C-alpha cells in the first residue's frame, strides 16, 4: 500500500515482535529495579559527589527524620515530607523511620539483602535484553528507519512545531501517525542509548570488583559516590519518562496504543477524542 493512500481508521503493522517483547520485559524489569533500588537506597539515604561519602561528609540529597518530622534535604534546603518520606506508617499502623515508604519498595519491609538479590538478578535481565534489542534493532532496520532523525526533522522550526502541537494535545493523524515524530524519537533514543546504558554503567561503577577490572569507570563518572548519585538521577529520569509516556498513551487513545504494543496492529487515528467521557451523564438513565 502506498503511504499516500493511508487514511484514518486503517490498521497497520506498527511494532515488531522484538519491540513488543522488549517493551513488556522492560516494563516489568524496570519496575522491579526501581522498587528494589529504593529499598537499597533506604540502607543509606544520602547521596554525595566524589570518590567517598559517609554520614559525616556533605550530602547533596538526604532523606531522613528529625523527631516526629520526616524531611528531604536537597542541596541544603529542607522540605517536610512527614507521612511519605523519612517517617511514615506501615500497613499495621506502626511508625517507621526509613526514607522511602513500604508501598514504593521491594520487599515492602526493610530487607537489604533481599532487595539486592531482586536488583542484581533483574539487572541481568535488563542488561541482556537491552543488548539483544540494540543488536536486533540495528540488524532489522528499526534504528535506521524508525528512530533515525533525518536532517529535515532537526530544523528548529520543525521541532518547535511538534512541541507546540504536543502542548495543545494535537497529535498526528492518518498517514502522519504512521511514523514516530521527532519528540518520540528523541525520547526513545534518549532512553535506549543514553539513560539505560548510563544506569547500567553507573551501577557497575559501584562494584568494588568492577573498579579493579575496569578502573576507567571511576574516571568516567568521577568516583563511586558520584556514580551512585548519577544512578539515582538516571532512575528519576526514567520515572519522569514513564509518567510522560503514560500520559501520552492515555491522551493518544489507550486501547489502540496498548493493543499495538501487544499485537503489533495499530489503527491510524483520526481526530483524537478525549480519553474520558464527560462524567455528566453518569447516573442519568440511558
Amino acid at each position, binding site marked *: 500500500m502506498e503511504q499516500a493512500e493511508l487514511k484514518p481508521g486503517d490498521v497497520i503493522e506498527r511494532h515488531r515482535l522484538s519491540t513488543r517483547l522488549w517493551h513488556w520485559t522492560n516494563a516489568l524489569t524496570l519496575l522491579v529495579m526501581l522498587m528494589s533500588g529504593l529499598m537499597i537506597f533506604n540502607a543509606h539515604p544520602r547521596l554525595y559527589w566524589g570518590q567517598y561519602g559517609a554520614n559525616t561528609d556533605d550530602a547533596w540529597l538526604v532523606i531522613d527524620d528529625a523527631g516526629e518530622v520526616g524531611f528531604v534535604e536537597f542541596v541544603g534546603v529542607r522540605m517536610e515530607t512527614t507521612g511519605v518520606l523519612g517517617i511514615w506508617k506501615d500497613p499495621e499502623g506502626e511508625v517507621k523511620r526509613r526514607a522511602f515508604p513500604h508501598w514504593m519498595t521491594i520487599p515492602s519491609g526493610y530487607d537489604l539483602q533481599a532487595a*539486592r*538479590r531482586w536488583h542484581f538478578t533483574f539487572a541481568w535481565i535488563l542488561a541482556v535484553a537491552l543488548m539483544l534489542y540494540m543488536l536486533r534493532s540495528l540488524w532489522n532496520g528499526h534504528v535506521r528507519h524508525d528512530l533515525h532523525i533525518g536532517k529535515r526533522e532537526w530544523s528548529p522550526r520543525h521541532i518547535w512545531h511538534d512541541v507546540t502541537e504536543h502542548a495543545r494535545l494535537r497529535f498526528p493523524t492518518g498517514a502522519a501517525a504512521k511514523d514516530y515524530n521527532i519528540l518520540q524519537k528523541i525520547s526513545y533514543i534518549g532512553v535506549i542509548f543514553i539513560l539505560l546504558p548510563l544506569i547500567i554503567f553507573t551501577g557497575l561503577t559501584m562494584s568494588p570488583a568492577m573498579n579493579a577490572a575496569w578502573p576507567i569507570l571511576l574516571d568516567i563518572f568521577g568516583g563511586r559516590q558520584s556514580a551512585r548519585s548519577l544512578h539515582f538521577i538516571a532512575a528519576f529520569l526514567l520515572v519522569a519518562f514513564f509518567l510522560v509516556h503514560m500520559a501520552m498513551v492515555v491522551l493518544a487513545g489507550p486501547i489502540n496504543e496498548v493493543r499495538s504494543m501487544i499485537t503489533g496492529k495499530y489503527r491510524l487515528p483520526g481526530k483524537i477524542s478525549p480519553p474520558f467521557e464527560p462524567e455528566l451523564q453518569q447516573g442519568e438513565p440511558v
Partner: protein
Amino acid sequence: MTHRGLVLPRRKFLTGAALGGSGLLLSGCDALTENAGFRQFLRNGEALNKGAQRLIMDRSALAPEFSAADMSPTFKANGSVTGDTPEYNAHVADKFARWQLRIDGMVRKPLSLSLAQLMAMPSREQITRHDCVEGWSAIGKWRGTPLRLLLNQAGMSTKTRYIVFHCADMWAPDVPYYESIDLIDAFHPQTILAWSMNDGVLPIRHGAPLRLRVERQLGYKHAKYVMRIEATDDFKKFYGGNGGYWEDAHDYDWYAGI
C-alpha cells in the same frame, strides 16, 4: 439500561484498580521473596556476578589506590566497634603484648605470631576505598602483612580451598563474627592483615589488633578483630555454613564483589 447505584465512575474504577493492582503487586513480591524456589532463582544474580566478574577481571587486578589528598576526613566505623570476649578485653588492657595470631587448619606447619613478629615481616601500605553494602564509602590508609606471606610460611595443604577468619566480636552468645574468602582473594597482592590505619596504630573501633583488607569486595568481608586464621577445604563446616556472620544471620551473598 443502567441504574444510578450500579454505575461505577470510570475514573474511580481506574484509581481503585491501580491501587488494588499495586497492592497485589507488593504483596505478591513479598510472597515471592519468602518463597524458597524464588529465593533460589534470585540467587542466580550472585552466581552470575561472581562468574562474570572473575571472567573479566585478572586474578591480580588491583583495586584503585588513592593519594593522601583523597582520604576521608572521618572514616566511619560500622558493625562491631570492639571485641567482646574477656580474653579480648584482657588483651586490650595490656595493649596486645601477649596476643598471638594463630594460623592453622589444613597447613603443614601451624603458626602462632605475636603482633611484633607480624610487624617485623614485609608489609604493604595502600590507600583504598572501603565500600559498605549499605552504599557509603570511606577512603583510608592501611598498612599490614600480606596474607599470602603467612599462608606460604604455614605451608598450605593442596586440599585448601578457603581461608576462614575467626574474630573476637560476638553477635550473640556462641555467635562470633567470622568471614571466609577463596584462594584467589587470599593470594591477591592487596589482601593484607592490617595493623596500622591512617599512619597510626589500628584503632579498636576499626578492628585492633588485626583486620582483614580484601579490597575487591564489600565491607562485611573485611573481618575485624582477627584472632585466628584457618585453612579449610569447605566453609560449610563452620558455624551456620554460609561462610560468614552476615551470610548466616542475614543471608548476605558470600561473594560481595558488587
